[in-house]
């Protein structure tokens, strides 16, 4: 007896219709729970990678590739890791460690012979972190890592660090101990009230936790730390005069930041050899620990900013740096009120292509980057800082910084053409020769010795 076709066909149609309804019910749940997030850009994958990615084995392939990348790490073959990072994050955007390691790798590991980071990669690192945070927004981790890039690596534009760490703090899995760091970001961004509020909030939570579990040592320690931080902060803010500035009575009383201290900045740059600079100068601040930033970059670099570049550009992850751009950044360590540094860019032609015609050498100091004891004198926004020649209130909004810019041409930097026999030297206004201070191994700390201060 043959089967009757009509009722069977009808049942197939009915079942397919029901199946379609179930499919459409399940699909949105699958997208939110199990699929790679929409922001994972898969268009960059090659056809065979795409096939594997979408055929259900993406996590497996990503895992295998990441193991391979680990081998490259061990071998020091950093360039080989970059494409793997990209493929792995495309295949499995849920692998947080790949994003975090990738960001760190890109931002920190590409250096020149003198261990200066290739800053041209930082926009890529930020884009990677941003993508990772979007794809894994249930956890604080990549928000934290991206904020850390702003806070520690870029060490500037602290509003961005604040922004990222605020988002990190909103996530339930952020450890309590790590939440303190947001307060530090607030301070560096000049947001004192927010810092105080944050500390107070953390303290209240810690005290509640201690009350619940009074025998937990960690709870006790947490409360003590937060109380100490808050106390220190309040004292510092008071002594530096921040409350007085806010209250409008700063001029009436004596504060640690009054009067502003003239740092006596001057600098000279000598092109000793092709792509080799000798940088020296003065910084009239006695305590050790100041680092004055020096940046050499293309003068006409479209993404360039005073002593920086536009760090966050797009959400598209592009692991290729701008190969034709030269951007060197270093820190000039001050001791004995002088700094000296030999910057050799000749051994890293890939990092310093010198393809442009004109360059600027910029000197920059912002007390927000400094240690607390420096900030005690200079204040968070440089209210205790001045320089007769190079105080600048424009390059960083609302802040008093030291900024100087000198120009050099390509021929001068490469010591070619007419500069092959002449030594290019550029100086800031009022340059004071540093003499032997730069070579003296002894660091003079006034107040601890009875000898008079050395003079030139």
């Amino acid at each position: 007896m043959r089967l009757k076709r009509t009722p069977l066909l009808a049942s197939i149609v009915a079942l397919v219709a029901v199946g379609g309804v179930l499919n459409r019910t399940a699909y949105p749940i699958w997208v939110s729970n199990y699929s790679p997030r929409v922001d994972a850009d898969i268009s960059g994958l090659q056809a065979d990678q795409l096939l594997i990615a979408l055929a259900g084995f993406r996590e497996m392939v990503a895992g295998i590739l990441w193991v391979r990348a680990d081998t490259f790490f061990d071998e020091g073959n950093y360039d080989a890791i970059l494409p793997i990072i990209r493929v792995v994050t495309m295949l499995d955007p849920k692998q947080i460690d790949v994003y975090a390691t990738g960001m760190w790798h890109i931002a920190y590991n590409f250096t020149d012979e003198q261990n200066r980071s290739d800053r041209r990669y930082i926009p890529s690192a930020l884009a990677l972190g941003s993508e990772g945070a979007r794809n894994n927004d249930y956890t604080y981790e990549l928000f934290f890592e991206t904020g850390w890039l702003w806070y520690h690596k870029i060490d500037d534009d602290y509003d961005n660090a604040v922004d990222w760490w605020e988002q990190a703090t909103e996530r339930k899995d952020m450890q309590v101990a790590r939440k303190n760091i947001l307060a530090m970001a607030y301070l560096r961004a000049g947001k004192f009230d927010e810092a105080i509020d944050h500390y107070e909030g953390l303290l209240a939570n810690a005290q509640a936790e201690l009350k619940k579990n009074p025998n937990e040592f960690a709870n006790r320690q947490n409360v003590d730390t937060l109380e100490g931080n808050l106390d220190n902060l309040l004292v510092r803010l008071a002594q530096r005069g921040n409350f007085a500035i806010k209250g409008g009575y700063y001029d009436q009383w004596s504060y640690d930041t009054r009067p502003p201290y003239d740092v006596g900045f001057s600098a000279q740059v000598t092109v000793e050899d092709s792509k080799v600079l000798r940088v020296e100068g003065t910084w009239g601040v006695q305590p050790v620990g100041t680092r004055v930033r020096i940046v050499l970059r293309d003068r006409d670099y479209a993404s360039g900013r005073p002593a920086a570049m536009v760090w966050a550009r797009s959400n598209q992850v592009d692991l290729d740096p701008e190969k034709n751009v030269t951007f060197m950044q270093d820190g000039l360590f001050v001791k004995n009120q002088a700094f000296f540094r030999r910057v050799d860019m000749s051994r890293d032609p890939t990092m310093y292509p010198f393809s442009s015609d004109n360059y600027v050498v910029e000197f920059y100091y912002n007390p927000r980057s400094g240690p607390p004891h420096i900030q005690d004198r200079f204040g968070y926004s440089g209210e205790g800082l001045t320089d007769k020649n190079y105080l600048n209130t424009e390059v960083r909004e609302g802040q008093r910084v030291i900024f100087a810019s000198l120009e050099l041409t390509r021929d001068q930097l490469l010591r070619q053409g007419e500069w092959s026999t002449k030594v290019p030297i550029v100086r800031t206004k009022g340059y004071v020769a540093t003499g032997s201070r730069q070579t003296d191994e002894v660091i003079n700390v006034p107040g601890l010795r009875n000898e008079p201060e050395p003079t030139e």
Partner: protein
Amino acid sequence: MNAVLSIAKTTIGEAIRRRVLLVILLIGVLFLVIAPGLSVLSARQNYTVLTSFTLGIIQLTSAVIAIVLTVYLLPNEVERRTIYTILSKPVYRWHFLLGKYLGAVGALAMMMLLMSTVLVLVFKIMQRDASMEDVMRLATAPIFFFVQMSLLAAVAMFFSTFVSPIVNIFLSGGVYLIGTLFSPVFQDLSNNKNLSPAVKGAATLVHTVVPNFAQYNIQSGIINRGPELRSVELYYATIVGYALIYITVFLIAGMMVFDRKEV
């Protein structure tokens, strides 16, 4: 139904003795056993790599087994003429087809159970701190792989009623790939505002009608712990129901073709 169950039982007995399948199974188990060798990274990465690799191996091996197991079931019976002695008994053709399918799924279940057991053992050895809850979560993935492969087996069984085994391997493999690929692509098309309504409608129709294998890939939630999963029970119930419906569809279609097939 006695006939169906008897045919299923015989099919299982035959399938688990087929050397090709045993070799594929052995390779899969070997890969599971050597998986810990890949875990050379941080603790969290060890977990991620271990689980992603082992679950991927199970899925891949199961897909190959499901296809190879099923494409030869009917053609072998016809070639060896065992089908004649069976169909000359009071056995309807659809009994025969259903019995063969259930046998295939039974054999597949046994093989996947073996692989899952190895998976759990390897996981427990490598992740000593793993709780029972972690193990249960991990074991969820093979369960849904099994549902996925049962659907794939139904597809292969349907094709086996009218194409040769070699063609069937490519057809079934192709449907599996498309059924896994289509979700993001067609969903993307159906949501793309720049496309014409006709194209969007066609994409929506395909997305709705073609078996969706991608939704059984739930391993992402296991491999990358942390994201909170929503409506999990509803999701599981829906996709199991979906599989049952589509298995029924393909079996009915296969029965309709097989009923009139000259063997």
